């Protein structure tokens, strides 16, 4: 996966990703995706290119369980979310909807840096800086779900959970 970094700070809440004032758009995801992260960066949704990356700091995705948050990040075009740490429900939801999440040292990434992510090798290469950041792979259970393309596909493929 290769793309440009969109940099955000610590504690990006699901209210920032999918604001409550657009609650009525939750059954209209393409429209909701136009407002993705708009209170954090009003330029994001209109300018993100397919394959770009959302890069956060600590505790990315804290707050509500709204799965719409990772869904619209994916619909907006992002190929993965990178953060120093993730809130639990967002992390699980992202895997369930097939959006790769990478927990790594994002202090080494600036806005607009060109990144190349090798999920299998566990390396983020910062092509702009010429550096490499290693990361721990997903837990086995989540890796299996992500590799199947998300939880719906995982369950349909195996007829139940096949996580170990």
């Amino acid at each position: 996966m290769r793309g440009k970094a969109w940099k955000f700070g610590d504690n990006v809440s699901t209210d920032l990703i999918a604001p409550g004032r657009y609650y009525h758009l939750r059954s209209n995801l393409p429209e909701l995706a136009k407002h993705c992260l708009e209170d954090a960066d009003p330029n994001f949704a209109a300018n993100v290119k397919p394959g770009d990356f959302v890069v956060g700091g600590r505790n990315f995705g804290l707050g509500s369980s709204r799965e719409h948050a990772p869904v619209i990040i994916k619909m907006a075009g992002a190929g993965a979310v990178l953060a120093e740490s993730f809130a639990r429900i967002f992390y699980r939801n992202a895997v369930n909807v097939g959006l790769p999440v990478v927990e790594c040292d994002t202090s080494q990434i600036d806005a607009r840096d060109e990144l190349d992510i090798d999920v299998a090798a566990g390396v983020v290469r910062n092509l702009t800086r010429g550096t490499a950041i290693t990361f721990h792979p997903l837990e086995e259970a989540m890796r299996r779900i992500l590799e199947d393309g998300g939880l719906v596909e995982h369950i349909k493929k195996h007829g139940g959970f096949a996580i170990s």
Partner: protein
Amino acid sequence: MGLTLAEKILSINLAREVHAGDFAVFTVNLCLLQDGTGPLAVRQFKKLGFSKVFDPKSVVIFLDHAAPSPKSELSNDHMLLREFARETGSVLSDVGDGVCHQVMSQYYTSPGDVLIGADSHTVTGGALASFATGMGSTDVAVGMGLGKTWLKVPATTRIVAEGDLPVGVYSKDIILHVIGTLGADGATYMSLEFGGGTIDRMAMSSRLVLANMAVEAGAKVGLVASDALTQKYLVQYDRGAAYREIRPDSDATYASVLEIDSAKLEPLVACPHTVDNVKSVREVAGTKLDQVMIGSCTNGRLDDLAVAALILRGKIRHVNTRLVVVPASRRVFMEAVEAGYVKTLLEAGAVIMPPGCASCCGVHGGILGDGEVCLATTNRNFLGRMGNPKSFVYLSSPATAAASAIKGEITDPREVL
């Protein structure tokens, strides 16, 4: 090796001993959907090829976040959920019945249950010694279809509170202290287990506050052991038979322990725009308020309306400060009417909203204007949470909120108690 409360409940579920770090597939006892996450869950349920839920009486669908609906799109979502409840025989808790977590606690959640809800504050049920945890729509859709979910058994931080709370200090102040101490990610992936003399003597209405906000420190569950007070609560809702005692072992292994001297606590607030930005009321006293909101799954229970009524009796809200009160459930509303609290609050200038989430999640019922400041008894103050990214939200106990409504600024409730 002794077990924590989380390990105890999950070991009962699996009928074999599990420990922190273990992965397993567990039996789901209860599922919760609400009107914000439910429509997506229903679509995923159908995409998964399911037509029947694992146990219709154990799947509860709530219309509470937009209740009554302020927009046609949300009315259509409500229609979809009502139709799904009809098709599958699931339980429907319709507009006006109350906030999901309050209604679940009253009528459905029991000690030992594994409860998965498509709402992060599902953790509220941990006050009844239920492994109650928030998940996304797809996880709950799978839970509704299979009656199963996968979990990693969490490690535990034990919170031990000893001593009596001073006048004007409540469980809300304890949990704000905990979140301020641990940080918004201080308990990520973990169980917070509340114990000690303060908790042992605490009414269920206050224990529910602790469990409800465990997620604001990142926790997967916030648990309290079940005891005679749990039993009393269940009996109150004609569910005495659901009681079972579940306690952690005295030699359980904890990742960490946080000790609290309850007598030394004081009224606290969470300041904009994170819940762990906790200060004492003294530090921010005098902050002007455009709105005070008393309600939510955190602090919209009868005891909360009682303390608000006690403080507001014979007083009137400040002319510049709107006072919005939202009972957490129909039952709470009826009991508050019978007790005279509603009359007292109306005489004090309050607007009473129907039971539900109201402005807490930014949908309707008291959205703030640009630059406006609100003190709410809710659980989140993120930028934009109450519907306007240009507004400011502080969080407090109902007593602090009521005292502040009178003065029109953040006020220490001990001034009026």
